[in-house]
């Protein structure tokens, strides 16, 4: 009994330890810096929201960066201009993001599945255009700066290292929250819906409402990550929340795998390596390469993973673990998971 109680705690403490250990390694590994570790953790948090949306609502969002932007801009405006406490500003951003997502979800979840992708793409672009042109509020193209450091009581997060530790801790909290949610009553409804919408509806689950709720929850994850991002860079501009960042979140979630909450951090790590790798390698082969050419790597990663490892890296890893467990003779019941393939679309 004692072991049962403490094992999860030890697991999470261990995971946190692994993250901390990454820091000294980061300086030694190619393509990695401590700043990249912060990016890895922040993108992991935001993408976890998208993973929930894709895995359980069976919907793809191409405007996820807009919710990241809602968090970032809310924090920027409330902490730099009116001096709110960072936590309060973060909460405000999360509420705004959730309300926006619920409104958007209300409209688009009535439609056949395929429209959501285009509708969220348009939503993301509209958000980008509004942030760029609403000069008086957002500073337009120049963006808005002067965002203070994140503080928590006596703690001040003003360096790559401290910010990374904070983001990594929030990432793990997000993981724990998602796992706990999935084993609660509404969470089980979500899992049921992820495997078959028709079956879920037949046992009394309000599919449209549940989808809306999970879409709003996904937006909250993105918004919290966005708030942390704003404190980290102390300055936000529309470029960070346009189409490319939205596509990046899609790549992170898909490559990591949408069956498991571990997919987002795994995918985020891969995407950071891909981004830094292409940025470093491509100029050696193509002289004078400019612009965001890392999208080649994103596109190829997306296609290759979906073709050859449709459950993503986390799905592949889970399969390996299961095989190993079977081989060792300790058979475990696989947890019910929702795969992209099983999600019904009409």
């Amino acid at each position: 009994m004692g072991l049962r109680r403490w094992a999860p705690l030890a697991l999470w403490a261990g995971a946190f330890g692994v993250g901390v250990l990454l820091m000294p390694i980061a300086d030694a590994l190619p393509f990695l810096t401590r700043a990249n570790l912060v990016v890895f953790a922040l993108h992991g948090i935001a993408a976890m929201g998208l993973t929930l949306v894709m895995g359980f609502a069976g919907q793809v969002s191409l405007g996820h960066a807009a919710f990241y932007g809602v968090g970032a801009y809310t924090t920027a405006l409330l902490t730099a201009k009116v001096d709110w406490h960072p936590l309060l500003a973060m909460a405000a951003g999360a509420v705004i993001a959730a309300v926006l997502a619920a409104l958007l979800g209300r409209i688009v979840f009535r439609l056949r599945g395929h429209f959501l992708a285009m509708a969220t793409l348009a939503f993301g672009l509209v958000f980008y255009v509004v942030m760029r042109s609403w000069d008086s509020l957002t500073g337009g193209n120049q963006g808005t700066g002067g965002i203070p450091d994140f503080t928590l009581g006596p703690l001040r997060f003003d360096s790559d290292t401290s910010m990374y530790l904070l983001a990594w801790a929030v990432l793990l909290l997000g993981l724990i929250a998602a796992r706990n949610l999935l084993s609660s009553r509404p969470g089980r409804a979500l899992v049921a819906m992820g495997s078959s919408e028709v079956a879920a509806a037949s046992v009394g689950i309000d599919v449209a409402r549940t989808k809306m709720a999970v879409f709003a929850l996904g937006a909250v994850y993105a918004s919290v990550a966005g708030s942390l991002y704003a404190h980290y860079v102390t300055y936000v501009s529309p470029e960070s929340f346009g189409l490319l960042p939205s596509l990046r979140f899609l790549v992170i979630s898909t490559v990591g795998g949408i069956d498991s909450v571990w997919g987002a951090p795994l995918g985020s790590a891969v995407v950071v390596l891909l981004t830094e790798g292409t940025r470093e390698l491509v100029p050696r082969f193509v002289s004078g390469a400019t612009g965001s050419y890392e999208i080649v790597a994103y596109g190829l990663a997306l296609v290759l993973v979906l073709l050859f490892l449709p459950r993503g890296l986390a799905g592949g890893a889970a399969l390996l673990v299961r095989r190993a467990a079977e081989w060792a003779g300790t058979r475990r019941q696989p947890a019910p998971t929702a795969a992209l393939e099983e999600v019904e679309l009409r």
Partner: protein
Amino acid sequence: MSEFLQFVASGVGQGAIYGLVGVGFVIIYNVTGIINFAQGHYLMLSALAAVSLREAGLPAVPALLLAIVAGALAGVATDRLVISPARRHSTLTLIILTVGVAIAVEGLALLIWGVNPRRYAPFTAGPPLEVGGAALSRQTLWVLAVTVAMALALWWFFQRTVVGKAMQACAMNRDAARLQAINPAQMSLYAFTMAAAVAGVAGVVLVPITSAYYDMGIPFGLKGFTAAVIGGLVSPFGALAGGLLLGVAEAVAVGYVSSAMAEGVAFAVLALMLVLRPEGLLAQVRTRWA
């Protein structure tokens, strides 16, 4: 009034292009159920290929034809290398795959052609023509002529050829079509090839008006999709009409309000369509392809 006519005149050219891109969305969606995110990227590929071939010294006609073929081959590659191997996956997976194709193609175009927009001269030189008090550029006339020719060709294809009829059958009922020995994998290949070729045609006639640049795929794709949604996403001709409507709406908004509106119009129209009339403005032409 003449001011309004002038806006219409400048909007129809762009609108016809949106319509041609929209036709591709309709063909692929009806035959396979996929919303193809790479649709605007075929237009971009053909446009940039045409610029390169012209710069390499090829005469206009072979250069443009080759560029259209290049675009169509990109459609073939999308189907054979990506869609076909993943056929057993869900539609959601297939849609994300087309997103992957789109961004990979855009990145490759960036590496090959760089960030600067390029263009070539209009097909026929000369001052704009006066039509009912509005000035119409000669290239716009070319765009309209090509669009009409494409519409006739599509009508002929869907009404008079066996393959066209088979694709129409897929659009009406995929399962029933299958029972008539219509091979869905083959139809998917035809759909992607045709959609890419039509977008390619749009690309090469568009270059003298807007230039060709590596990231034109997504804006033109989104506007083409909006055009297709206005037409109800079921009829190629509905998409063409939707494109013309969208193009004119854009030009009018830019003319009467501000040029900053250009980007917003398509998104606003798309949002309104999805909220108010997801079945399209032209619902009565549902499943009728001609």
